[in-house]
């Protein structure tokens, strides 16, 4: 459904954050977008949502389309209307508003009925949020904030949900809850999901397909199991050697020259 072809993105007309990225998210798919810090993952999501302009970012080349329709020139609200909803990195709640007000903002473009049905669904998914509905969002724990961020996006009724590092800084049980929720949304509602993660092991476990981005380029892509079996990915992203033990940092650095896809 979503297709990016040869996308190049510049900040301030000078910094080339994304050099050449092509990727696809098929209907009903979970697609993992992996890469280390500064690879360009967040920039790609912002380009899809068309919220680069406040940061002076611009898609210079390439195409972004949803089911064949060009998205590049559509304003951000139109992208949301078409069903692409973006959960930003670092959760980005409206910190002074209550949990319920935050969730309701997700339904900004929806009618009254859809909004209250959406709220009910989110409270069913995360009962903890129902207890905390009158709390000021800025004071919630990190895990609760991530639930609000995802819940808020769900109220918007996405066909394609884009999650930017949802596991960042969370305890393992919360990560499990979030990942289970993501899988359930995909299985039960057929929601397509574009999952950006640094935690490759986690993402490849739930994804159907994966892309690895380095320095603004897709360096590897394929079905998730195949990516997870790739020797380089094992070494540099999954942090284990062929024997399955974890590598320490120094060894990883030592092996850096051997990355096959860069040579």
């Amino acid at each position: 459904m979503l297709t990016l072809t040869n996308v190049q993105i510049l900040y301030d007309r000078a910094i080339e954050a994304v050099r050449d990225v092509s990727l696809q998210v098929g209907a009903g798919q979970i697609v993992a977008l992996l890469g280390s810090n500064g690879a360009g993952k967040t920039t790609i999501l912002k380009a899809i949502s068309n919220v680069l302009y406040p940061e002076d970012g611009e898609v210079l080349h390439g195409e972004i389309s949803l089911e064949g329709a060009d998205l590049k020139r559509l304003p951000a609200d139109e992208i949301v209307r078409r069903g692409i909803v973006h959960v930003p990195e670092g959760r980005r709640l409206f910190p002074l508003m209550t949990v319920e007000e935050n969730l309701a903002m997700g339904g900004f473009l929806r009618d009254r009925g859809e909004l209250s049905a959406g709220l009910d669904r989110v409270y069913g998914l995360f009962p903890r949020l129902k207890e905390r509905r009158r709390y000021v969002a800025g004071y919630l724990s990190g895990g609760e904030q991530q639930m609000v961020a995802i819940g808020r996006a769900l109220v918007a009724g996405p066909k394609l949900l884009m999650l930017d590092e949802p596991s960042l800084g969370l305890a393992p049980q919360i990560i499990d809850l979030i990942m289970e929720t993501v899988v359930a949304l995909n299985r039960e509602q057929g929601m397509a999901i574009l999952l950006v993660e640094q935690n490759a092991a986690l993402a490849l476990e739930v994804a159907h397909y994966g892309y690895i981005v380095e320095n603004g380029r897709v360096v590897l892509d394929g079905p998730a199991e195949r990516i997870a079996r790739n020797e380089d990915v094992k070494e540099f992203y999954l942090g284990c050697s062929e024997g399955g033990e974890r590598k320490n940092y120094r060894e990883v650095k030592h092996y850096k020259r051997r990355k096959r896809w860069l040579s």
Partner: protein
Amino acid sequence: MELFLNFLASGLVIGSIYGLIAIGFAVIFKTTGVLNFAQGEVMMLVAYVSWSLATELDLPLVLLIPLVVVAAAAIGALLERIFIRPMLGEPVFAIIMVTIGLAVTLRSVIVLIWGADAAAFDVPLKGGLIEIGPVVLFTEQLFAIVLFLVVALAIFLFFRFTRIGTAMRATAQDETTALLMGVDVKRISMLAWAIAAVVSGLAGIAFAMMISRAPDMWFLGLRAFPATILGGLDAPLGSGLGGLLIGVIGDLSEGYIGQGLKEISGFVVIIVILMVRPYGLFGQRELERV
């Protein structure tokens, strides 16, 4: 006591005017981060347009007010579209300079169109003097206070309970995330200017009805500005309250201490309060978390 109450009442009257203009400052600052130094001039323009409407059409107040609200909203939205929208993405400082330019321009345009003379704003607000216990007010003065209360309540309800009001608060807190929720942030800025023009414009009319419509009315903007700082630049209701405070303190200090204090007393209060609360009385400190 009687004297005190009368000073208090007259302070509340002028304070209501300051408060309304201060709400205008705060609505724009809160949603867009811009200090609109032309707020007093926008108020004056609305007052002049309303004066022309009132004298040409000879409408009763109940019909004039809705008409003025629509006209003021259009004026605010238009000014935003012409002068502020093209500045989108420029540094805030540059945008503030534009508002200063706009202020000077509006003053001249008003004199060009309506001339430099003052004129009475004769709206049939009959009733003459009203006695409330020991306090005596003109109907027009009471109108200013009532207007303030009604507008402040409306602003509160708007930001708290309406969808678009909530979206304006959201935009103020995190613009990019508001975009991700499907909020058209450009329209929010236009709306903020429209609301500010309506609110301060109503103050302009109330003032013109009490005194006259005159080309030095923009000066009220300068008086109201400290009220916004006092109440909190990002707090519309707090700013309104700041206006009342400045008005009351001004009239009390002039009445009890001496002539001329009216002008400076407000600033003295502000300096003292800002030393204790740098965000203003009701301003929000940024939350540390998130």
